[in-house]
């Protein structure tokens, strides 16, 4: 049997990006929610709830970028120049937010500065990621192995909308994470925010979903042509199911259900983009096979990935298990 290596790799990269979105999504979300929790004590607990795992979460982004260069070099070499400004904005946001995890505990006088860096950096990174997603969905023109569009092509009403959607969506992941990981008053306010973010996320997903099919003829065909239109019934139905689980979970104080339901919403939204996208890597210019690296590169890295990704997932799970349960607010105050 012949293995279609570019197809397999597209699946692995898609998995890495999804892993990034849901894992770093909730810790970026915690940063986005900082302004709603002005008390130092609450902020300490919030930050401590993600401090042991954020670094591993962010590594999936490096795998997404590094992996893209390895297995779809042409996609990497055309997407990044096309999205120059949002990518730079994203890394600058991630710089501020990443150092805040350490710096915030090193100073009392300048703590406000690193609170701001953590929160502002998280928002900037999330918004830039949303813009990147929107710009990719609306298409990137490529000729002769190079980006041929303009400098500001990424900036459109649609990409601003996807930017907002990602910020709201990450806030939902962050708030449900806090519901799961914290006690008392902090958890109660997180519940309240989670409820608001649920409606915000659903509204944003709705707008983006209704807008997307009209960006490219292929997208329209995927969602409303037979037989693929089956998806356009199943996906929204599952979305409603997740929403139900989310809201009843919040109301009935099943503290881990809202987080799982929010993850479900993200997976479905991601699948929706995949349904529109396939078989493109860079719509409407490059398919998975156009952008793929030579077979020798794909098979060399695949051999390692098949062994290593399961091991990575195992020790990542172990690390989450070590820090399982609610964060003890006393833990930072001996």
């Amino acid at each position, binding site marked *: 049997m012949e293995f279609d290596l570019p197809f397999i790799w597209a699946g692995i990269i898609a998995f890495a990006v999804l892993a990034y979105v849901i894992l770093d999504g909730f810790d970026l979300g915690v940063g986005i929610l900082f302004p709603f929790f002005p008390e130092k004590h609450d902020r300490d607990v919030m930050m401590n709830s993600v*401090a042991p795992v954020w670094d591993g979460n962010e590594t999936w982004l*490096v795998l997404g970028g590094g*992996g893209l260069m390895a297995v779809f070099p042409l996609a990497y070499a055309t997407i*990044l*120049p096309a999205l120059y400004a949002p990518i*730079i904005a994203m890394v600058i946001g991630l710089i501020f937010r990443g*150092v805040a995890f350490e710096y915030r505990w090193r100073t009392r006088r300048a703590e406000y500065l690193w609170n701001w860096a953590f929160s502002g950096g998280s928002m900037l990174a999330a918004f830039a990621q949303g813009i990147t997603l929107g710009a990719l969905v609306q298409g990137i023109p490529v000729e002769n192995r190079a980006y041929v569009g303009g400098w500001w092509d990424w900036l459109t009403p649609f990409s601003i909308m996807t930017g907002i959607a990602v910020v709201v969506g990450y806030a939902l992941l962050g708030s449900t994470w806090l519901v799961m990981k914290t006690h008392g008053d902090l958890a109660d306010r997180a519940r309240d925010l989670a409820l608001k973010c649920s409606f915000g996320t659903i509204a944003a997903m709705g707008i983006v979903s209704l807008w997307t099919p009209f960006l490219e003829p292929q997208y329209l065909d995927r969602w409303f042509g037979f037989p693929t239109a089956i998806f356009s019934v199943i996906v929204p139905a599952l979305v409603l199911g997740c929403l139900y689980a989310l809201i009843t979970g919040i109301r009935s104080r099943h503290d881990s259900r809202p987080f799982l339901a929010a993850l479900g919403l993200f997976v479905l939204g991601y699948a929706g983009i995949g349904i529109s996208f396939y078989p493109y890597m860079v719509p409407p210019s490059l398919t998975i096979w156009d952008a793929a*690296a030579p077979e020798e590169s794909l098979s060399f890295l695949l051999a390692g990935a098949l062994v290593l990704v399961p091991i990575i997932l195992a020790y990542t799970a172990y690390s989450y298990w*070590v820090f399982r349960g609610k964060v003890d607010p006393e833990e930072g105050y001996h």
Partner: protein
Amino acid sequence: MFESFDATLLARFQFAFTVSFHIIFPAFSIGLASYLAVLEGLWLLKKDEVYLELFNFWKTIFAVAFGMGVVSGIVMSYQFGTNWSVFSDKAGPIIGPLMGYEVLTAFFLEAGFLGVMLFGLNRVGPKLHFLATLMVAIGTLISATWILSANSWMQTPAGFAMNEAGQFIPVDWWAIVFNPSFPYRLTHMVLAAYLTTAFVVGACGAWHLIRKTAPRRARKMFSMAMWMAAIVAPIQIFAGDMHGLNTLEHQPAKVMAMEGHYQSHPDGAPLILFGIPNSVEKRVDYAIEVPKLSSLILKHDLNAPLAGLDTIPEELHPPVGIVFWSFRVMVGLGFAMLGIGLWSLWCRYRGTLDSNVWLHRAAVAMGPAGFVAVLAGWVTTEVGRQPYTVYGHLLTANSVAPIAAPAVAASLIAFIIVYFFVFGAGTFYILRLMARLPRDPMPDLDEGPLRSSGIMPGPATLSTHASTHGGHHGV
């Protein structure tokens, strides 16, 4: 002010700036991670609390430095695409998988176990915790291995073919990974990282010996660092010489620039110690030189002929001035490190290691020497590779992305501002942490929180005192 620059030059400035900042942190964290593993191992073996105290002290500094390394590394992983997209497209099939393996085998390992190492001592117990520390240390070494393999391939490319799209196609992965300069470069870099850390730890120990704070911990720290300097500095000089011979074989133009040999020397080349390279007149002005010594070092024969840059077309010359000087800075600091190492051995023999104030002052002054030497070494090797990105095959001018100069200029300015602010603050915090020695488990809250990375308020300890307070950690 940027009208006179082209996008390629700006992209090179940006790369040089961001990579120079980035390299400082891995150089420090590779050595420090191994040091932490040694400290924790000694603690488990000897049950002496001083090792745990030192572990907790350096762990906090490691966390700050590692955080800076991670964020500056993310910039690097995207900059290949934003500014060097043509390079990414062409060399991606080879460089990409090497970096992919770095992420899969090293980054996840470091990041996954870092949380356990920083926060988990009371949750997993000392044995598993030691395993986490080891994993972090091994991760930093694996990371160095892959990135040095990728960089070495760009210096001495091997095991590839070209396709019609102008891409480098891998033919023999064994030859790619173990390309001709890789073993020398990896050895040289890992030793450099160990030396860098040794001199930082040594300077910190010496500072506290001078100030007479916490003498036992300071003595231990200083003594360990000086052993490292005395043992590794001579090995490094030997490894550097081997690396130089390898470079002469594969990248002669770089060695010519390092040595300042504009002219060929048919019967024995002098070693130019100092001078001012003059690229217009093609000579080194005011040169102080030792006759025949360059031939002796490079060819092990006083009268061996040595080719100069006059044998190479001028458009393929690397910038001589930069390479000439950065090489001298690196070598000079290497010998200064050797000097400190030998001096410390002498003091140790005389029994004055803890009391010789001049040695301590010299060690404090040499604290940043490793960083400067590492940067100078990288400048030598990277600028010496010019005008190529992939030596002999892909010119830098043909690697750059189709981007506009104002965009690169704007992002360069943004990076400069952000880096100086963010990493300036980080350096300040690290220096302040170093100025306070590890104190007893209860932190002095009046001076602000002294937590190790967020959760633990003071140095984590498994002593009876803390475990009665911390019994609920196991939940």
